[in-house]
């Protein structure tokens, strides 16, 4: 390559890098990509050079000098270009590699699959709400949704700013906790602030063992034996489990292929559970719960987490053949909404929108895939410690938070569309938690009473369906 065509090639290459920086991203992302890519291209140039040059030491020091110069002066990509050209012909290959890599990353980023856009649990950081259609939403409420989006950015900034403080607070707490200086009451108060990812495994394990520890200790190899003992036995649930493995957390990098470690573990946990509790076997929703547990806990703990939730925290028959428990809780929630958020209740009654259209999935999957990731992790923290009341607290809090907005809606389809969009925009879990925990005391007894009452009603309805069905069959 003569120097002219080389120059032309480099110019084009940096053009690609610049386009990546300027076109594809908002400000924050583009900052990251400009720096990363320019720097990587820059490094490649020098690695390429030092390989071809015998005097490595001299070159390396030059390379370091170059990088610090770049950093100090914050050189633009065109400066880099000039620098690269002046540094000799062997840079072309290195630049080619950097550009190929950059283009590959660009594709990944476009598809939301770039490793640098994952959070600590492997969730892609790309906004999953890009393709929402706003057709159904009245103008006045688009503003609400946009505000929620803005809130998200502010929230993230604020969080980054306060992350240290939050972690220090937890560190301080854990010190006392480890020395047995804290009571459960203190833990509850602390957990209601949300758990820092650093201590999440520890606290979750504590919560789970509090519920299933006795069971576990009686038979330490229970989980392994469950899998071993039943290996090769036919299981009617396996087909359904297989169908859902990759549909559990589609937005998480750890659950993308059948070969991935997490997916193999997820299969194990779900199959083991279907043997453990044959009455339930497998029900959609359990997969999401198990997947979240696996993001925080080792495989065996994740299994016990599922057991703790299904058999100890939630009432009986939540996931059994007609979802009796879960259906009942939708009526219980409706009762709470009627008393605590009457405006929403009246609106939904007036427009004849059934609350459970949105909330059933909240309860069956403990909000996973319904709310933004950090919001449902916050709910999970308290849910594992305090139990099923937390589901109601947050479900009510959500409706309280959007009360005024729902009241502006006039049409049945508008309400459906708004609910679908707004729940994915509830990033501000602090406000939500504030509302949820300020609802006043939630007595176990009143919840139990309500459940008893509505369980009967649900049973009656199901009976009627059955009667109707058998009537239809005889007609046929």
């Amino acid at each position, binding site marked *: 390559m003569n120097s002219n065509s080389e120059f032309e090639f480099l110019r084009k290459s940096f053009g690609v890098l610049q386009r990546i920086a300027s076109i594809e991203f908002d400000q924050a992302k583009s900052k990251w990509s400009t720096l990363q890519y320019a720097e990587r291209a820059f490094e490649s140039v020098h690695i390429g050079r030092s390989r071809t040059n015998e005097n490595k030491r001299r070159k390396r020091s030059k390379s370091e000098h170059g990088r610090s110069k770049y950093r100090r002066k914050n050189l633009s990509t065109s400066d880099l270009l000039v620098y690269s050209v002046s540094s000799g012909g062997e840079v072309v290959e290195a630049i080619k590699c950097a550009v190929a890599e950059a283009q590959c990353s660009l594709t990944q980023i476009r598809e939301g699959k770039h490793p640098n856009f994952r959070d600590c649990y492997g969730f892609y950081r790309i906004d999953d709400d890009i393709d929402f259609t706003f*057709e159904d939403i009245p103008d*006045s409420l688009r503003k609400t949704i946009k505000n929620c989006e803005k809130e998200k950015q502010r929230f993230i900034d604020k969080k980054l700013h306060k992350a240290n403080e939050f972690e220090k607070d937890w560190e301080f707490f854990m010190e006392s906790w480890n020395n047995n200086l804290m009571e459960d009451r203190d833990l509850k108060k602390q957990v209601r602030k949300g758990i820092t990812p650093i201590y999440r495994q520890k606290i979750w394990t504590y919560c789970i063992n509090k519920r299933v520890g006795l069971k576990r200790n009686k038979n330490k190899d229970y989980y392994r034996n469950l899998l071993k003992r039943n290996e090769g036995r036919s299981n009617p649930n396996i087909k359904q489990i297989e169908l859902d493995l990759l549909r559990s957390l589609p937005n998480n990098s750890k659950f993308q292929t059948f070969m991935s470690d997490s997916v193999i573990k997820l299969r194990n946990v779900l199959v083991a559970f279907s043997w453990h509790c044959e009455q339930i076997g497998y029900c959609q929703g359990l997969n999401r719960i198990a997947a979240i547990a696996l993001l925080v806990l080792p495989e065996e703990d994740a299994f016990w987490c599922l057991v703790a939730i299904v058999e100890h925290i939630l009432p009986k028959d939540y996931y059994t053949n007609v979802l009796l428990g879960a259906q009942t809780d939708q009526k219980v929630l409706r009762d709470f909404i009627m008393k605590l958020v009457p405006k929403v209740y009246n609106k939904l009654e007036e427009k*004849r929108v059934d609350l459970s*259209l949105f909330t059933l999935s909240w309860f069956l999957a403990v909000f996973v895939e319904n709310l933004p990731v950090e919001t449902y992790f916050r709910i999970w923290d308290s849910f594992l410690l305090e139990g099923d009341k937390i589901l109601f607290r947050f479900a009510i809090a959500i409706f309280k938070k959007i009360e005024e907005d729902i009241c502006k809606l006039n049409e049945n389809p508008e309400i*459906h569309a708004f609910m679908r969009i707004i729940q994915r925009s509830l990033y501000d879990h602090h406000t939500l938690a504030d509302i949820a925990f300020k609802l006043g005391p939630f007595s176990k007894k009143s919840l139990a009473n309500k459940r008893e009452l509505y369980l009967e009603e649900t049973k009656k309805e199901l009976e009627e369906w059955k009667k109707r069905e058998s009537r239809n069959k005889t007609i046929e």
Partner: protein
Amino acid sequence: MAAGPYNYSYIFKYIIIGDMGVGKSCLLHQFTEKKFMADCPHTIGVEFGTRIIEVAGQKIKLQIWDTAGQERFRAVTRSYYRGAAGALMVYDITRRTTYNHLSSWLTDARNLTNPNTVIFLIGNKSDLDAQRDVTYDEAKQFAEENGLMFLECSAKTGENVEDAFLDTAKKIYKNIQDGSLDLNAAESGVQHKPSNGPRGANLGGESSGNKDPCSC
């Protein structure tokens, strides 16, 4: 709050039913967003989609209820059939079991909707012809025997997806035109929207079942 005049004159409610994993949500996504969603989460309960289409010069808004396919969710999703003007019944051409279950889905669709509900049979995943487990002819015959409209589609390539949704709407519209679908009947699944008049409200599976005359 005053709303402007509607830019459509009818709302049709659709439901999508069928076994789990046949691609109900992917069909909906292909129809509303015109693209294939490879990593589509499964549905718990119900999801919604809408799109405005045009039939015979009339703008029609389709409100589509996409239901969960797992057997035990039928106890919940049954209540969503009410007031559907169209039902898309989906099976997977590569899995015979999903085809074998059609008669049970059809029974639900017949029993839980009104007699004029248009039922459209969709054999999804037509792009996977090499793995085909159900022939076109037998499905066609099943459809004819039961008076269903039928197409094989692919949510992945988009083949025939548009047609399935649109043909259903055309048939419903035709039923309105020739009077066989009474808009004033409860739960017809159709809402007429005069461009600046008051609103009818016989849409939605939640209605109590009382007669609820449309305001048109």
